[in-house]
């Protein structure tokens, strides 16, 4: 970066557009309605043949018409994960009230997180090579199976050039890694906007791996439940449009939330199992980076895979930081499945929607909370709540942790220009003005403790 850029004061970064593809709905309106309703998107997987697997259930995206959603990227030449990333980016752009020309006039950054990239294309190539041999390898396959294809798909779809683009393959924490990269770039003036998030598509390879480890639930994913037995693989994309507060206010954009900060670390301990102290350390890094005290956090959107080990470890880490007064902690994977690299990006969007619309999405499929997960998981039904600050967790294989903090945007110096005057449906909560965050309680709307045995 140049000396001039380095000298500039850090800028506030806000989220003004969301694009979501998931098993419970495509587009931010459907996604919001589903989260509020506690809808569960489980169904039979049809994108690959699940014959012979113990279970063929998962969270597949339905009703995704790539040709209708994409203007430039040609679906027939493009893998499913890249299609998802490009379509969700366009959705986020539209949702932000922006167009391609606005992006092109400014330096930007595109960072897409993923676990598998275009492994689905490699699955198809494997089948093809087993059938026809080396003729399966065509000239387009190298680029079509490259992981960098996801971010490039966004760039191509929006016809951008003065943009830095990369795909982050930090497994199931990748969405938060991408959001963090975009946050830093915009905050420090390297970019005027960022399109960041994550995308992954269901594929045989990853399904077989989780099934082999016995981590796939036979019926539903039940985060934090005493009887949880595993996860359900899912697919989808979450893309977020970030820009400076100054830019958003100048153009009268509706602001979902402010990105307050984030933390990254690595357990450096075990290839697949999480480590409590290290997850707690990552939460503390994020809180410190965001200048947020634990008591100011109203909600945690947990990684919450529904596997026995993850949930126990994650809650123990949360309680290590928050003590017995942990904020309500929800696992939206019960509704949308484990969308891998998209998971923490969709979690961040859910967090922003909680702030914007004043409700807490539930932990669905819940029967009784595991005593080892002693927090209010907001079972089965969403609750209205005044949500000001949300912690969004992403934990990955390899001990990679990434935690993002989002907060309600406090329109300092613009008190008359609140969010509620911009024609959105939610009028269910009053602004709490500029009271200290520390004075906000966690609300009493939910049956706190009822499910904690």
């Amino acid at each position: 970066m140049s000396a001039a850029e380095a000298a500039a004061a850090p800028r506030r970064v806000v989220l003004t557009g969301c694009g979501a593809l998931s098993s419970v709905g495509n587009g931010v309106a459907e996604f919001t309605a589903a989260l509020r309703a506690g809808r569960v998107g489980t169904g039979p997987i049809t994108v690959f043949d699940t014959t012979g697997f113990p279970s063929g259930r998962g969270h597949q995206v339905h009703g995704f018409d790539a040709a209708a959603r994409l203007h430039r990227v040609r679906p027939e030449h493009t893998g499913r994960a890249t299609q998802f990333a490009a379509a969700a980016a366009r959705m986020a752009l539209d949702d932000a009230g922006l167009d391609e020309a606005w992006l092109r006039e400014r330096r930007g950054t595109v960072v897409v997180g993923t676990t598998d990239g275009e492994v689905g294309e490699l699955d198809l190539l494997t089948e093809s090579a087993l059938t026809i041999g080396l003729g399966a390898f065509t000239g387009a396959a190298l680029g079509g199976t490259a992981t960098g294809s996801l971010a490039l798909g966004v760039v191509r779809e929006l016809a951008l050039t003065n943009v830095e683009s990369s795909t982050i393959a930090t497994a199931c924490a990748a969405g938060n890694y991408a959001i963090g990269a975009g946050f830093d770039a915009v905050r420090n003036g390297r970019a005027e906007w960022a399109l960041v998030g994550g995308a992954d598509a269901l594929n045989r390879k990853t399904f077989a791996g989780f099934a082999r480890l016995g981590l796939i639930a036979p019926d539903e994913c039940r985060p934090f439940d005493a009887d949880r037995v595993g996860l359900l693989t899912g697919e989808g994309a979450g893309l977020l449009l970030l820009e400076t507060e100054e830019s958003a206010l100048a153009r009268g954009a509706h602001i979902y939330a402010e990105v307050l900060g984030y933390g990254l670390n690595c357990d450096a301990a075990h290839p697949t199992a999480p480590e409590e102290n290290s997850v707690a350390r990552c939460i503390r890094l994020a809180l410190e980076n965001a200048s947020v005290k634990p008591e100011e956090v109203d909600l945690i959107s947990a990684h919450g895979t529904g596997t026995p080990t993850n949930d126990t470890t994650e809650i123990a880490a949360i309680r290590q930081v928050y003590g017995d007064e942990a904020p309500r902690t929800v696992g939206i994977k019960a509704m949308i499945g484990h969308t891998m690299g998209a998971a923490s990006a969709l979690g961040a969007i859910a967090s922003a929607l909680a702030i914007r619309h004043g409700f807490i999405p539930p932990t669905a499929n819940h029967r009784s909370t595991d005593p080892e997960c002693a927090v209010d998981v907001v079972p089965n039904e969403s609750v209205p709540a005044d949500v000001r600050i949300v912690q969004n967790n992403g934990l990955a294989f390899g001990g990679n942790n990434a935690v993002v903090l989002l907060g309600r945007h406090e329109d300092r110096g613009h008190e008359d220009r609140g969010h509620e005057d911009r024609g959105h449906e939610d009028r269910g909560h009053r602004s709490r003005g500029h009271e200290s965050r520390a004075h906000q309680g966690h609300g009493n709307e939910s049956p706190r403790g009822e499910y904690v045995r």
Partner: protein
Amino acid sequence: MSTAVITAWSAVSPYGTGRAPLAAGLRGRVAPPESAGPEEWTAQPDATARLVPGFEVREALGKAGTRGMDRLTGLTAVTVRELLTHETAALPEGDLGTGVVLGTAAGSAQGFMEFTKASLEGDRPIDVMPSKVPNMAMNRAASASAIRHALKGPNTTVAAGRLSGLIALDQAVRLLAEGRAERVVAGSAEEYSAIRAHLTHAAHGDALVLGEGCVMVLLEPGDTATGRPLAEVLAVHHRVAPQGEFTEVLTAAVRTALAQAGVEAESVWAAVPGEAPGVAGAQERQVHEDLFGPQVRSRAASVALLGETAAATGAYQLAALLSEPGAPGRIALVTATDPDGPVGCAVLRLMTDGEST
């Protein structure tokens, strides 16, 4: 804000394990020999490439924790071991820890496809090797390196084709600038495999000789570095040429990077292109001819010596600069292009005489 400095580097390359064989080979402008590829699914008996000689993961790293580990992870983990053993064994671990940023193209395509093959061909579709499951996360190489050396900082795996090494460098510099790590081990890696050979040959022609390997550098903040600075990272800038207009977009990227570094094109001592196959590489060479004289273009070794090294290329370009003798203070530049569109440039100030490596 201080800039980041490279205070150590190491490699596993077709010249052998460690920094010295690579530095000597590049300085001597001698291409490493070709050898036969591993016996694996789809391997052709007569296929050769510029492989890391005799590299076997479990021989290189020992038996502990390496069962099923893929070649890409092995190459990376050995490079990180060489880097930390020889240069920084006594470094204190600060609160933020040491980060890892690794550039890759697509993880281990061979490993992924063999896993799927096992699922398709087994008696049951879950008859895959459990020891291979950790490989299925594309961050295996970065996280396994962290596990082996207790590197508890941010741990990023970044994929951007042939830009991967350059972008890994950029991400590492940013992590340091933002105070998110005490130090960062950054670089990029590529494994040779039969599958990668088929994919590459189908895209760029059968004549292309593949290479493999990994180069990692240790980056520290300039004002708190404990190691002797070998190079200062002055600027990294990258863009995309989505329509294949590499000349125009790369020229803009180079000019922007030079401006951010505060140096003129005339003061560049050495310029090292990424040597991409096809039109991307041809246009990249044209940009270098337009901007730099023949001496500047030939001062450092060409990474073409190593064969087509895909995601590892950017890190090899850094190695070519760090290996080249000359007076401290030289300004050097690398560019990268990817046939799929990304282009970029990094500008460095070399602070070593290049001989002591």
